[in-house]
């Protein structure tokens, strides 16, 4: 499986097997931060960054773990690395853009428990990607996440003015929308992707 081209890995992670809409990773921020387009976009950028950092670190750690034959510690190490990467982003954001820091609020530290990020680290290990492939994969996953988040935020901004039945307000409506988006993204499956 490790012989795929970089473009294919990127496209596969970003569109065909979109992390949010096809693999259901990172649903919490997808439902939580997608109310405004601006916040969604910045959240996406933060996630891309954390993904890249943690993917590179996960690659290095996996190499070390295999070397010392202690793969059972993989999960614990990965999660520790991701937590530190999130902390890094948090500090940087607090310093350079306090307004954004406040806008993202609780969802910034919650990137740690964003399954999409641990998912990238785990999938790249399972599929035995080499270093460049890991980079392409994590970048693609991040772009896919941002794409889904921004699309959703755009839809929800529109819907704020729409007249929907009282019962379907809130999470139910968002989930239905997500279902429709996911249905649309299934159309890309013809590009040659395979469900992981």
């Amino acid at each position, binding site marked *: 499986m490790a012989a795929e081209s970089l473009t294919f890995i990127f496209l596969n992670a970003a569109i065909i097997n979109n992390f949010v809409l096809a*693999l259901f990773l990172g649903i919490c921020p997808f439902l939580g931060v997608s109310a405004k387009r601006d916040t969604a976009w910045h959240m996406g950028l933060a996630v891309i960054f954390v993904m890249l950092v943690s993917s590179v670190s996960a690659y290095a750690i996996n190499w070390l773990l295999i070397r010392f034959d202690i793969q059972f510690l993989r999960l614990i190490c990965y999660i520790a690395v991701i*937590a530190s990467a999130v902390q890094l982003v948090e500090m940087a954001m607090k310093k350079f853009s306090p307004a954004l820091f406040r806008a993202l609020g609780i969802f910034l530290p919650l990137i740690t*428990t964003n399954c999409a990020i*641990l998912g990238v680290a785990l*999938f790249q290990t399972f599929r035995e990607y080499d270093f460049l492939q890991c980079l392409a994969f994590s970048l693609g996953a991040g772009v896919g996440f941002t794409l889904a988040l921004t699309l959703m935020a755009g839809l929800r901004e529109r819907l704020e003015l729409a007249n929907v039945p009282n019962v379907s*307000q809130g999470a139910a409506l968002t989930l239905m929308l997500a279902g429709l988006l996911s249905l649309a993204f299934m159309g890309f499956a013809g590009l040659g992707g395979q469900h992981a």
Partner: protein
Amino acid sequence: MNLPNQEETVTADTFLRGLWEENPVFVMLLGMCPVLAVTNSAINALAMGLATTFVLLCSSSLVSLFRKLIPKQVRIATYIVIIATFVTIVDYGIQAISLDLYNALGAFIQLIVVNCMILGRAEAYASKQRLGATVVNGLGMGVGFTIALLCLGGVREILGAGSLFGFPLFAENFQPWVVMILPPGGFFVLGGWLLLFNWYRQRRERKLMEQQGASVHGS
């Protein structure tokens, strides 16, 4: 949701709260990723629910036992390491028990580690309560989570494959509604359940209002 800061005594409510009032999936919308991803059949949903319940119980008991020893500054990191340990145990356990199940659930067993529900319980409940209350509450939450998973998995399997727990339910002419076991189906079914609960809640509130209105007019 108001969380008690004092140590509470164990009552039936401690357990039942997780089932309905604070159901992690339908009310608090926590831990959505496994909820949507592995519920394409009832058996997967059940296995995932049990695995999550096990991790939830063990990790929150441990957190509750050590709650006075863990320094405040590093508590989240400590919780995550504790959770990750139990998830590793579950991961190897399932691999040993049933390889088919392991392949079906895939990476989602390891992803229990980032289930917000477990970390949320550790932070909001186990770190403040005694062991007994934590175990009961954790069990309630776990069972609530499992029931929610079964609700989704059952509906999706019946509609999408025409069977339940692998047993066919309909005659040969049944046309499976394939989209239900594909990713969009997860969103649709969960949305449907939420609609149902919203409708129920609103109806109950309206009835309550009408009763109050009637009593005001009567007096």
